[in-house]
């Protein structure tokens, strides 16, 4: 069963609706016990980095979550700010991140963005996926997803990057280290591509 972490941030209903449509069982996790039976975990996230970290720390679920992810190797995917939380730190805040993937989160350099509109990076953009990643099965350079963010993930190890996107520079739009995944775009708001990605996640 897929557990979606409810720590007061992110559009849980949108995820639940999509999984119900796919006939896949999901559970909203609000207390540590809810994470115990999970075979997969989704960490959604929106808003500011520090606020998100604070909410997760306050939720009481962090210890159980770390046990499931780091010890039991349950697959987890962080989405948007949920992805950024996987890093060690963020230029957006002062609190440390989860540090599950070796990297930091930086603000886009607006001067490199070739449009009158600079930040946030908002709208439908394409991804360039690495081959052979089950989470990104069925996608290619033409596949579009919805983005809404001003900060981006910088991996210390190139190996952890599983998809890139261009906005002023080429940045990591999806990352992975072992069982820990992060995606910067919003699958729950990306129509059929998003449904397929969430379906992929449920299958491996």
């Amino acid at each position, binding site marked *: 069963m897929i557990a979606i972490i409810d720590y*007061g941030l992110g*559009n*849980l*209903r*949108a995820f*639940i*609706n*999509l999984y119900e449509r796919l006939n896949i069982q999901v559970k909203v996790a609000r207390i540590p016990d809810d994470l115990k039976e999970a075979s997969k975990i989704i960490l959604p996230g*929106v*808003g*500011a980095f520090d*606020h998100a970290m604070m909410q997760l720390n306050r939720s009481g679920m962090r210890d159980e979550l770390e046990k499931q992810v780091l010890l039991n190797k349950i697959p987890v995917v962080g989405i948007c700010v949920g992805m950024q939380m996987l890093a060690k730190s963020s230029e957006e805040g002062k609190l440390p991140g989860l540090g599950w993937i070796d990297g930091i989160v930086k603000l886009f350099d*607006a001067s490199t963005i070739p*449009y*009158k*509109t*600079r*930040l*946030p*990076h*908002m*709208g*439908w*953009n*394409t991804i360039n996926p690495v081959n052979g990643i089950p989470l990104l099965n069925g996608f290619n350079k033409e596949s*579009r997803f*919805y*983005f*809404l*963010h*001003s900060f981006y993930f910088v991996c210390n190890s190139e190996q952890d990057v599983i998809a890139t996107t*261009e*906005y002023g520079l080429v940045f990591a739009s999806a990352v992975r280290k072992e069982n820990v995944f992060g995606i910067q775009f*919003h699958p*729950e*708001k*990306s*129509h*059929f591509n*998003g*449904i397929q990605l969430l379906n992929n996640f449920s299958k491996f």
Partner: protein
Amino acid sequence: MLYPRIIPCLLVHNKGLVKTVKFKDPKYVGDPINAVKIFNEKEVDELIVVDIDASAQNNEPDYKMIENLAAECRMPFCYGGGIKTVEQAQRIFNLGVEKIAISSVAVANPAIITDIAERVGNQSVVVVMDVHKRSITGKYEIITYNGTKNTGLNPVEFAKEMEKRGAGEIVLNSIDLDGSMKGYDLNLIQKIRDVIHIPMTVLGGAGSLEDIGTVIKQHGMIGAAAGSLFVFKGKYRAVLISYPNKIEKEILIKNYFLNQQK
């Protein structure tokens, strides 16, 4: 590569969807949830829903309706109408709305933009400017409370201020062209585009895909929103929800966007 956005804008009045002309004469065009379902199937880039009763009648936002719409939307969802406080904005955001549209209260209390942005992030704060062009002087002015209250504010100056205060996007709406389907006010759009760097979405006047193409050709990365174009068909304005299909959209982007990029 990032693409410009083509966005249906729906108005809610007495719990139904309506379309107005110059902010008046709301005509019933259907059920909101049903419309969202159709727009899901058509894979629209984004959706804006504005409750036109809320601020004008001083009502609380209809949280139940917003929650239902947000849950149904498989695309980014922007809600506007009746938001006056940071707490209301936060509550709506927690219902699963990506963007919060603020209009009347941004004029009455501009500092609230900063407060809301600190809570939910700049990228989620949208300021809607409803603009009227004075027929004698030709001057543009922001009108609030669903087109009923003159503010004397110049939209160019106001847009700059909103960007400075932390808005993540401006929706520029022409009251005079609302429902007219005569094309966007390109002069007004240019004036605002010249002074801000945050994303901008234009609304009011689109009557054809060519109108949308024209504004994309001029401005590249822009949101082109429309009401009538996506809910009416033909000169008798029969209600029919529509949106360009994949091929139509690709042709539009190719002709008006890709060929313009250097």
